[in-house]
């Protein structure tokens, strides 16, 4: 035990004591800044979650999720399919937080959403009552050059395994220009329906899945806020919004001149 730890009578405090006290405080605070700053950096880095690590249903934006989740793992315990697990310290997902890798074990979309029911902090929002409303991510066909259906084969596995068959993934028929006489059945993901459960990614027959669940923003892209689709606006208005009187393009004819 050092002498500093022994209580001194209050009257013995002198200017020297006071000076030493402030010196100690400054030294302590500086030393801790050396810990705090790297810790802050670590926190920032951990917020950058790899795209293949998917949060459970009801998780909000990553920042909100990391503030809310206390990492106690009841969502993991109550997951009947052992889909969810807690990140180990050495993994690139924030230590102790729940996630799943769709290609390993996808979300089975339980109707009673036990993971959300188990969460005590609201990190998984109780506002999610219908699992079809979950948005864990959005599936996207990333392998146009490898997807069997894109080559004209009838694999259709992602389409058939989808819990929202015919809604979240549809098969759109196109002409097969390679053969000139067959059809392509192109799987198309509809982001307004896709829950990001990852069953399609798990089921994809390729060595590396051609369809992957990604964070929605990465998967779908995002339109500039000022953009308007002309045909949508036309439908909303019930008529063409072009004013023919104002819009008068020059008539060009062969032979020069206008």
């Amino acid at each position, binding site marked *: *035990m*050092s002498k*500093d*730890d*022994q*209580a001194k*009578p209050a009257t013995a405090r002198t200017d020297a004591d006071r000076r030493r006290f402030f010196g*100690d405080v400054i030294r*302590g*605070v500086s*030393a*801790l*800044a050396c*810990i*705090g700053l790297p*810790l*802050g950096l*670590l*926190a*920032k880095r*951990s*917020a950058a979650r790899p795209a293949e690590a998917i949060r459970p249903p009801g998780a909000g934006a990553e*920042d*909100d999720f*990391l*503030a*809310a*989740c*206390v*990492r*106690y*793992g*009841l969502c*993991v*315990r*109550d997951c009947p399919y052992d889909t969810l*697990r*807690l990140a*180990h*310290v*050495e*993994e690139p997902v*924030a*230590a*102790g937080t729940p996630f799943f890798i769709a290609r390993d074990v996808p979300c089975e979309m339980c109707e009673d959403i036990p993971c959300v029911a*188990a*969460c*005590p*902090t*609201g990190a998984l929002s*109780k506002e999610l009552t219908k699992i079809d409303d979950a948005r864990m991510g959005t599936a996207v066909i990333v392998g146009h050059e490898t997807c069997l259906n894109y080559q004209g084969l009838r694999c259709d596995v992602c389409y058939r395994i989808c819990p929202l068959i015919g809604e979240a993934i549809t098969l759109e028929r196109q002409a097969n220009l390679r053969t000139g006489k067959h059809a392509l059945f192109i799987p198309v993901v509809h982001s307004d329906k896709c829950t990001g459960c990852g069953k399609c990614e798990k089921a994809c027959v390729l060595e590396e899945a051609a369809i992957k669940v990604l964070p929605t923003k990465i998967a779908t892209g995002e339109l500039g806020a000022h953009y308007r689709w002309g045909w949508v606006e036309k439908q909303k208005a019930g008529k063409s919004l072009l004013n023919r009187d104002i819009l008068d393009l020059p008539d060009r004819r062969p032979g020069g001149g206008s």
Partner: protein
Amino acid sequence: MAVTKVIGGDAIKRKGWLKANKWLILRRITQFAILGLFLTGPLFGVWIVKGNLTSSLTFDLLPLSDPFVLLQGLFARHWPETTALIGATIVLAGYLIVGGRAYCAFVCPINLVTDAAALVHRRLGLKKGWQPKRATRFYVLAMVMATALVSGTLAYELLNPVTIVHRGLVFGMGWAWGAVVAIFLFDVFVAMHGWCGHLCPMGAFYGLLGEVSLVRARADDRANCNDCLDCFAICPEPQVITPALRGEKTGHGPVITSGACTNCGRCIDVCSENVFRFGLRFDGTVEPVIKEGATS
């Protein structure tokens, strides 16, 4: 280099081995029992307690949450659901009764590591090593909350060895063993009682509760003290003993009032003169103290 005198040797002679290790044995039983409650589910499918030390649900009924982690969440600007608030309130109330840092001595899994380190340290007769101020942990605590506030996440939970190791034991260790090894080596070779005694912000937090908690170790029969110093040698926070044991001169009552005391009860064990016992902070057995030191 080896220590010639066995700490608590006199107590073993006077009281018998069992009585001279009573609180140590009770403490180990408690630590392993609590760990066992968490592990029966994952190991044997018998679910008594689900979750981990951060937050848990017992018999699908009783929620318990760690107020230290919850406080970080509040600093990260997240208001938790009622379940977590109730759980944290129960835990707070519990430690306000049994002593704040009773958490450290009876529950925390890292205590097993640092106690082992302290034992090895004593047996090897090593020097104390780096000894930062005991108050350093409060700066660390402040830093933890500041980091949560600035980053908006539970930043310290990325490093907190207590929650990492306990979560590891229940959910799979991964590299969490690294934290165990690091703390053991640190406490043996870098700083005696380094982690729990000087740095751990979780201990600091529970220590704040200990400042007002009900159950305290007391040196009621301090008149019997034969200055063998065994209690000081065994105590992980020896500075807390002085005011109570030697307090007759300074007008301090026999209650160990410092929140840093972990209520581990080892002082009771190793004392051959039965100076110490557990009691309440407020009960009326404080003998009138002659304040002779006040004027000099």
